[in-house]
């Protein structure tokens, strides 16, 4: 996985299975606001009439979340951590077609 390549382990459990947390380095977070271009918004609007999945927005949120997690991992790296535990995600819609994604967790050193 992407996070593993950068040398940071990301989990949403309070402990890391098979490892001991030796030091906590505070809360790290990453957030992003992204939008799709007008054409995709219009297409999603049309698709919304017939219902079902809006794959444009699924894709948008997937990309945004990757970016948010990437920023969180960068924050953790700058603090000298090697893992982020207890990661939580929050989403909020700002306007139609733009979503804010927020990822946060605790940076730790683990052995």
């Amino acid at each position, binding site marked *: 996985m992407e996070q593993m390549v950068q040398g940071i382990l990301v989990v*949403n459990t309070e402990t890391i299975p098979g490892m001991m947390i030796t030091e906590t380095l505070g809360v790290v977070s990453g957030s992003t606001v992204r939008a799709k271009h007008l054409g995709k918004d219009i297409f999603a609007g049309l698709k919304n*009439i017939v219902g*079902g999945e*809006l794959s444009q927005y699924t894709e948008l*949120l*997937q990309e945004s979340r990757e970016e948010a997690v990437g920023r969180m991992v960068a924050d953790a790296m700058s603090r000298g951590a090697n893992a982020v535990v207890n990661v939580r995600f929050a989403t909020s819609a700002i306007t139609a077609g733009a*979503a804010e994604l927020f990822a946060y967790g605790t940076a730790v050193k683990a052995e």
Partner: protein
Amino acid sequence: MVDVGGLLVLGIILVILLPFLLLALIGMLWTVAYPLMLCWAVLFSGKKLDQQIASTASREASLRESLGRDPLTTIDGGYRTDITSCGVVWSGVVFGPSHWHLLIGWINNLTGGSVDIFQKVVSAGRAEAMQRLREKALAEGYEDVINVRIDTSDMTPQGARKSIKAVEIFAYGTGVKYT
């Protein structure tokens, strides 16, 4: 000289007007497309939703059958101690009711009680998100997903009346590998 200047002025006017022309075109297209799409929704959206539910259920059943268990658990830390590697996995689905379903829901809302159509739409989305989480975790080489959390967030901003009506179902957890 006059000709070139005239053309330039015409060009500038066109460039300024272009966004408005484009908006008008989109508006016209919308007026034509909306009734057609609504007719399609009235006729087929219920069937489409049933198909979606059936396809998710069959994928889930075949995955469960091949593994012999459900890889998702909500237990924090899992129930086994022989975990060798872990990492976060997530999946999200943006899922919305059709405008026909919105109308049914609105009528249902007048009489009160449980609004079954919205329950059906949202749980179809949720089942799909969970199934994608299972598939994604297995594709990344994990055997189980522990500490699974499922969030539902509204894609429609507060106070916006003319926007898409959809919810995002987001499922995440920690993928684990055993020895």
